[in-house]
């Protein structure tokens, strides 16, 4: 089912309700459905409220491209790429081989220095936090990640449920970095910092050569919105209050 980029707001009131499968979103008397026409249900009340807020924030037209939490929920519910947990984890960990913060330049010296100063600390944090060897490289092949390091991350990610994993993989794809994403998920860095580190080379080039001002801010805001949504999604899908609620439901 194709969703147009915008359509007129067709509902007055947005509310949430609790059904058998979880929390549902009501647009007036209609229950929200996914693009694949499944009933839209989420496991977390806080997430449902945040999604409802997205829908209620729309003014005359519904701007789907701004509704990142709704999009993430739709992906979790419809699983359009048909990937299972193992495949999702492997896709996430594979990013380590081309992780932004591990890929270094040798020239220009100023950029190499900037990468060292800004990225070394976050790599060191990840190595310490997960007790792994990662390193960085100026080789075109990227860093040589030990198999044991990959295994550690595979095991760690396996502790997340399917919904949270969709969110993690999304953040990794947006930031082009597993390490920055784990920094976010582990609440070690803020979204603003993670996005800045992700765009370090771009920011450097822009300062060096200038840019089309609005395009820069546009990309920056979009990446921040997506990274923030993904992070929030992961935390809301994996917090203990969600688990408690599920137990209560049984």
């Amino acid at each position, binding site marked *: 089912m194709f969703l147009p980029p915008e359509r007129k*707001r067709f509902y*007055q009131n947005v*509310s*949430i309700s609790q059904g058998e499968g979880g929390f549902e979103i009501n647009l007036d008397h209609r229950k929200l459905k996914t693009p694949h026409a499944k009933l839209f249900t989420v496991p977390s*009340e*806080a997430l449902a*409220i*945040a999604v*409802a*807020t997205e829908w*209620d*924030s*729309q*003014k005359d037209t519904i*701007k789907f*491209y*701004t509704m*990142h*939490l709704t999009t993430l929920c739709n992906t979790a519910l419809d699983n359009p790429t048909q990937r299972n947990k193992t495949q999702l984890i492997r896709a996430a960990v594979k990013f380590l081989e081309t992780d932004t913060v591990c890929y270094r330049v040798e020239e220009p010296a100023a950029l190499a220095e900037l990468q060292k100063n800004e990225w070394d600390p976050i790599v060191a944090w990840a190595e310490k936090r997960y007790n792994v060897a990662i390193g960085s490289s100026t080789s075109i092949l990227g860093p040589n990640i030990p198999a044991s390091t990959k295994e550690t991350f595979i095991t760690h990610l396996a502790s997340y449920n399917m919904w949270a994993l969709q969110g993690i993989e999304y953040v990794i794809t947006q930031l082009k970095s597993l390490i920055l994403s784990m920094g976010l998920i582990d*609440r070690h860095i*803020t*979204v*603003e910092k993670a996005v800045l580190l992700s765009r370090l080379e771009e920011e450097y080039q822009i300062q060096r050569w200038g840019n089309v001002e*609005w395009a820069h*801010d*546009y990309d920056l*805001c*979009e990446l*921040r*919105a997506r990274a*923030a*949504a993904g*992070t*929030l999604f992961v*935390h809301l899908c994996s917090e203990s209050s969600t688990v408690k609620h599920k137990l209560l439901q049984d």
Partner: protein
Amino acid sequence: AAAPLRHASGRAGRTYRDTAAYQHIVAAFRAHRVTSEKLCRAQQELHFQAATYLCLLRSVREHTALHQEYHGKGERSPEEVAGLVGFRLPQQPGGKG
């Protein structure tokens, strides 16, 4: 976190205080307002969540504003498009016949 919620209330005539999101956040903060160090981590997690949500709301607002400014002007007419690259359409004066 209250600041961006003020902007999020789409419909006129309703304050942000009435929104479910605001009430949820206030309730969550009240529940965690304890002095015990044990629950300090829960407080930190809540702060991070609030900061992340604030970032989301603010970034979406800024992105939408920029989108409206530079993409929202609707489709340009053929004359406008031609003019962008310095051409004129055949039926315009000076255009190729």
